[in-house]
Structure formats: structure tokens, C-alpha cells
């Protein structure tokens, strides 16, 4: 009898812990990602039902021309050009489809001030294909982003 109770308790605890740590497929996008150029790191978070990515790290923090922290100097809206690049949301409004894809979003390129339609595809848990395009997705450019992994502590 004692054995049965122990077994049932074990299964119950296992079930509880599995459900607690189970991640929504859509939320796998949450994390810190590094574009292939390595100049920035982008943190993806969920706001409401959509996903957004903001720059949290820049390899070159200061603008070499001004010596000040980099700002969004190419923004088409002149009054918004003092907005800092660190903290800037370059990925906006992504929604999950059921094919490891997040669509309906846009990506902003601070280097030219252009905003592109964008599709994010997760090719494996730590790799994203980020495809920016204008009009139709066929004519666009894909960049590969890697998830930033934290080093695990050794005992």
C-alpha cells in the first residue's frame, strides 16, 4: 500500500512540475538574440498578445561623429531623431502561427531609417531566420540570428 501511495505521489509531482515548466510554443521566441553582424543584441518580449524585440546591447555604444550615445538619427520623423538606439524596439507586432513562424510584424533598420515587413522562422530552438521584405516575401533578405546562451555555473 505504501509503495502505491509513493508511486501515485511521484506521478502527481511529476505531472505538476511538467505542466509548470511547459512553455507555450509561441513564447519560445522570448529571449535574447544576436543578429549575424554581431553589432547588437535584441531582447524579445511579449506585450499583450504580440511579440516585440528591443536593442539591449550595442557593440559600439557611442556615435563616433558626436561622441554621444547613439540615437535614431535616420528616423524619417525628424522630431524622433533624439530617441536612443539602446532600448529601441526594432521588432514589432509579431504574432505566432502554428508553423514555428511569427508573422504580421515589422523590422526597423536604424542604419537607413527604413521599416520592412518581416517574418521570423525558428529553424531550431536557438536559431531564427529573420526575413525582411517590401511587398512580397519572395523579394527580401534573410539574416540568421542566434540565441544568446548564458554560461551555466559549474559546481
Amino acid at each position, binding site marked *: 500500500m505504501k509503495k502505491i501511495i509513493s508511486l501515485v505521489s511521484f506521478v502527481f509531482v511529476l505531472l505538476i512540475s511538467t505542466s509548470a515548466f511547459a512553455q507555450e510554443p509561441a513564447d519560445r521566441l522570448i529571449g535574447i538574440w544576436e543578429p549575424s553582424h554581431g553589432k547588437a543584441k535584441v531582447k524579445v518580449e511579449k506585450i499583450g498578445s504580440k511579440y516585440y524585440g528591443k536593442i539591449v546591447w550595442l557593440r559600439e555604444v557611442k556615435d563616433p561623429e558626436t561622441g554621444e550615445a547613439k540615437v535614431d538619427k535616420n528616423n524619417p*520623423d525628424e522630431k524622433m531623431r533624439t530617441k536612443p538606439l539602446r532600448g529601441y524596439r526594432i521588432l514589432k507586432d509579431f504574432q505566432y502561427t502554428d508553423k514555428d513562424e511569427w508573422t504580421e510584424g515589422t523590422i526597423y533598420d536604424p542604419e537607413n531609417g527604413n521599416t520592412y515587413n518581416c517574418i521570423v522562422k525558428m529553424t531550431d530552438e536557438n536559431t531564427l531566420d529573420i526575413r525582411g521584405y517590401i511587398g512580397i516575401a519572395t523579394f527580401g533578405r534573410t539574416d540568421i540570428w542566434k540565441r544568446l546562451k548564458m554560461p551555466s555555473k559549474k559546481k
Partner: protein
Amino acid sequence: MKRIIQTTASFFLVLVLFACGGGKTSNITLETTVSADGPFFQGGNSLVADIPLNIKELVGDESLQEVTSVTLTKAVMQMEEGALASFNNATLQFVSDANPMTTVAIINPISGEGKSVSFTTSDEAEIESFFNEESFTVLLDLDFKEDQYLETVEAKVNMNLTIEYK
């Protein structure tokens, strides 16, 4: 010849008056308190508030059918005395399920003096579609100078808006 010119001019005048006659304008103030739970780490942290909208009540016109244009003319952020000194800059945005996140105003840098500070408002943000919804979210990104182990941070945001509608 003079008659033709007069007739043509009258026709265009009537056309212009007809085109402009359908719209109405109202200036409103929207006040909200955005907040977030801590702890807060150095860098950008988001404070949010949901805005339930009854646009007819806001503009005081029950005949309103559709909002055609909205301009944010002024936005002010208020915090407790001395609190503003904790932040480098701020970005004010609107977002909803049906509309993309839109930056409407920024402050960079934030002057640490006093209790309130004015934003620079965007001339190009298209925000009328938010005002044709039943609610939207105001999102204030505050850039913290350093980690702050606080339970909550709040800011009052006052927005002056010019609403054009029919």
C-alpha cells in the same frame, strides 16, 4: 468671359466648402497613470496602462460616427518629487491588438528637476485608428540609470489631443 470665370470660381468655392463641411474638431485631455511592478534593472523598463475608450463621451458628441484624424499636441509626464532624476530618457507609445505599436512622443534627455517634464510629440504618428477602438494600451518605456529594487513605479501621463471626426 468674365461670367465663365465667375461661374467656375463659384463652382470651386462650393466644392471646397462641401469637401470641408463634413468634419468636426474637438480638443480633449486624456489622463492616465502607467505603472509596472519591480524590481527594475538598468536600461529600458515598460510601464503600462489600459485606456478604455468612450470616444463619444470624450468629445461630448453623441452624433460622432468615425474619428478621422488625431494629433497629439502635448504630452506631460508627472512623478514624485525627485523621481525623474532616476531616468535617462522616455518613450511614449500606443499599442493594441488591432494596431501596430506606434511611438507618439519621446524625451531625451530627461531633466531631473521638478515633478513634471514635457515630451517632444511626433508630427507623423498615425494614431486615429486607436481612437476608433474600445480600448488601447499606453506604454511608457523608461530608461533607468541604475537597478532599482522598488515594488512599483508609477507615472501620470497627461495628453492633449486634437480629434477630427464626422
